[in-house]
């Protein structure tokens, strides 16, 4: 198969001609909207005059705070145009209604009720655009006893079942790295947006998606959630090692893992090359479990003598699932990712040379756009031109504060 774009001409991208309003801030909504833009949609990011809080999150070059050089913001807002609108202002709200009338998808992550209280609820937004898809992202959804409850990454992780399962059994439950609950909500929001949009293309009717980060996480509990329910089992976190052939070990230069199902065992044992591993008791899956500690000790010694990359290569040549704990530096140097053109690059005037993940998949029919994230209010005038907002009205709006300070100067 070919992975190069077949005909990368403008207008042929999957979402060419689709207009998206990204009202969300932080991680989840912007992540979803970024990829819609990457797939060819015209994404207009609407920021409050104070800017998306991600602009203040960093990381920053040399740790100096600069709202135009925040790494989190620059990553999550590629392939968008940016405008400022003050939704606390009547004129700002009217412009938002006009933008929604010209849009196919709106993504927002305000507290439940925020938009409706300002006359910008789903029914109001779709009044002039019946096919409009609204994706609302919140920690707990629009309804129910926790709706509107404040949340942070760690509290969402706790309330999803995942934190209970992560970490060492003799230490506290552990949050995983980064901001996974928000990213997860964003990935689900992306799927939700395209599914609802396709539904709208077919039926002409839009829909309001109520996405709860808690629910997206609670729907990916592997076998642990389902078994707690069906069999009344009470699983608990198991650290890094579920069994000797399904775990992480210290290796010569860091940490590596072998995560084999029983059917992968013989290939692994052959690659490891310790003759006992192909003899009883280890060769039998049930007997092996009864000798799990001995097997773990044998494998520990072997891992310690090999580098992570050696172990990964052995997995490739002998066909068993093995890997190593790669850092972002390892990934940036990966020949595999380079060959697949995974990283996007930019020489940013404020942030310097940056490289970051640039696609979700490769397709024979499209490439991915990764254009630079907008500065605050960068495209306000351009978008007002497209909306046909007259100079005199623009002046009135500006004077009344619809764009905040300097939003459309």
């Amino acid at each position, binding site marked *: 198969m070919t*992975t190069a774009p077949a005909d990368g001409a403008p207008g042929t991208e999957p979402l060419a001609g689709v207009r998206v309003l990204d009202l969300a801030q932080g991680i989840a909504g912007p992540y979803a909207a970024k990829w819609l833009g990457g797939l060819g949609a015209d994404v207009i990011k609407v920021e409050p005059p104070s800017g998306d809080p991600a602009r203040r999150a960093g990381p920053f070059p040399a740790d100096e705070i600069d709202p135009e050089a925040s790494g989190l913001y620059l990553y999550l807002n590629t392939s968008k145009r940016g405008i400022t609108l003050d939704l606390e202002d009547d004129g700002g709200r009217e412009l938002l209604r006009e933008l929604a009338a010209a849009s196919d998808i709106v993504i927002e992550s305000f507290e439940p009720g925020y938009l409706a209280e300002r006359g910008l609820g789903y029914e109001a937004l779709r009044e002039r655009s019946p096919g409009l898809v609204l994706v609302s992202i919140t920690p707990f959804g629009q309804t*129910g006893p926790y709706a509107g409850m404040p949340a942070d990454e760690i509290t*969402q992780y706790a309330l999803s079942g995942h934190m209970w399962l992560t970490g060492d059994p003799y230490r506290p439950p552990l949050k995983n790295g980064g901001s996974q609950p928000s990213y997860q909500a964003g990935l689900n929001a992306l799927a939700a947006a395209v*599914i609802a949009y396709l539904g709208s293309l077919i039926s002409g009717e839009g829909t309001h*998606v109520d996405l709860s980060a808690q629910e997206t996480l609670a729907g990916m509990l592997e076998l642990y959630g389902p078994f707690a329910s069906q069999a009344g089992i009470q699983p608990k976190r198991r650290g*890094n090692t579920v069994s000797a052939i399904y775990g992480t070990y210290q290796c010569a230069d860091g940490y590596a893992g072998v*995560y084999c199902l029983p059917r992968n065992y013989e290939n692994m044992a052959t690659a490891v090359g310790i003759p006992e591993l192909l003899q009883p008791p280890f060769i039998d899956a049930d007997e092996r479990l009864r000798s799990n500690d001995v097997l773990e000790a044998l494998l520990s010694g072997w891992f310690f003598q090999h580098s992570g990359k050696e172990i990964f290569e052995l997995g490739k040549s002998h066909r068993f699932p093995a890997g190593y704990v790669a850092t972002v530096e390892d*990934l940036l140097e990966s020949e595999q990712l380079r060959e697949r053109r995974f990283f996007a690059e930019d020489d940013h005037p404020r942030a310097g040379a940056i*490289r970051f993940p640039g696609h979700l*998949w490769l397709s024979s029919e499209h490439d991915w756009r990764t254009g630079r994230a907008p500065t605050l209010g960068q495209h306000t005038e351009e978008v007002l031109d497209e909306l046909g907002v007259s100079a005199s009205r623009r002046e009135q709006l500006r004077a009344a504060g619809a764009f905040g300070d300097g939003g459309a100067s």
Partner: protein
Amino acid sequence: MSPARRPLEGVRIADLTAMWAGPYATMVLADFGADVIKVEAPRAWDNLRTLIRPPLARGEHWWNSNAYFQEYNRNKRSLTLDLTSERGKELFGRLVAQSDVVIENFRADVMDRLGIGPDWLREQREDIIVVGMASFGKTGPDASAMAYGPVVEQLSGLASLTGYGDGIPFKTGVSYGDPVAGLAAATAVVTALIQRRRTGRGQVIDLAQREPMTTLIGEAFMEWAMNGRLPPHRGNESAAMAPHNAYACAGEDEWIAIAVRTDEEWAGLCSAMGAPELVDDSRFATAQSRLEHRADLDPLVAAWTGALTKQEAFERLSERGVPAGPVLTLPELLGDRHLATRGYYEEAEHAEVGTWAMHGWLWRTTDAGPCVLAPAPDLGNHNREILGGLLGASDDEIDALAASGVIGDTPVGERTRSEILASRR
């Protein structure tokens, strides 16, 4: 009001996926209305069916009923076809001709080895959408590597970010790479359907499971580019705020996560703790000073939570607007009053198991009605319906297929054994 039409009704998916990543993708597509035909073979069934053995898998036909398989294969139909046989391959070609999408998560070389790679698929149907989900992709020097979710997590960079701070990287509790890849693959399918509406062309999608996972840690790449630093393990702490931790509560292995972002939330925590004087304590006056005095602060919070159940602490904190979450065990999650109010869990039913609760919609839409319309299919359960209806085979032909082992309803050959769950007993 009757439930709304599901957006993917009328889309047919020939689903060759197995285990968790691929079936998660087709679960999403099936939930939203696609006709997902799960294609297995009597000698090559979805290993998830047999990963858990009796007594944990119940019933005479125990390969159909375990909860892991059930959860992620609901709303699908099952067809068995031995793709290594000429007849099986020919029938699969007829299925492809009547499908919009073929999706698989085999090792990178398997489709070509079976002789059903993209070129062959396009011969069956010119505008077919083909999605492959090999762990590292179909191209490049690592294409032949195999991985399950924990290896994907290691090679995505995420595992390097998780840990208590003693240098040991930790895996996420679940095989996190799988559902992440699954959601991305579902998105890829629908994106391709949207594009096909306009261009009339199908497409071939090469989705490396590792790549969407890597997009979930974007800021770590920025930190490296800007400052040449790898993010340290922070355990449950935050670089930006304190308190921010899991605090022990009354009882054994009971915890509550608390995060205080603002001065208002700090005042709320002090009020909940019955220690309003702490608001005026200069060590804790600002976000910055709270971070600096984290070592003094955490024991104060822990002393308070230690005397309460996690639910008591949760109530007192949430009514004061402080972000908090009890670390829910899985039975507690299943009983969570908020999820219950929203109708998140739906009743699943299987003839040989009875009923239990299964998660429903991953996200809600207007008038959606119940999500789970059918349990995961028994192996080969829809053979007659699909072969006889969609593919036009006669009853005699179908009997002959069964007699020759091209189709079947029972796994044939050595049983794959349950290692993961057995080790927990």
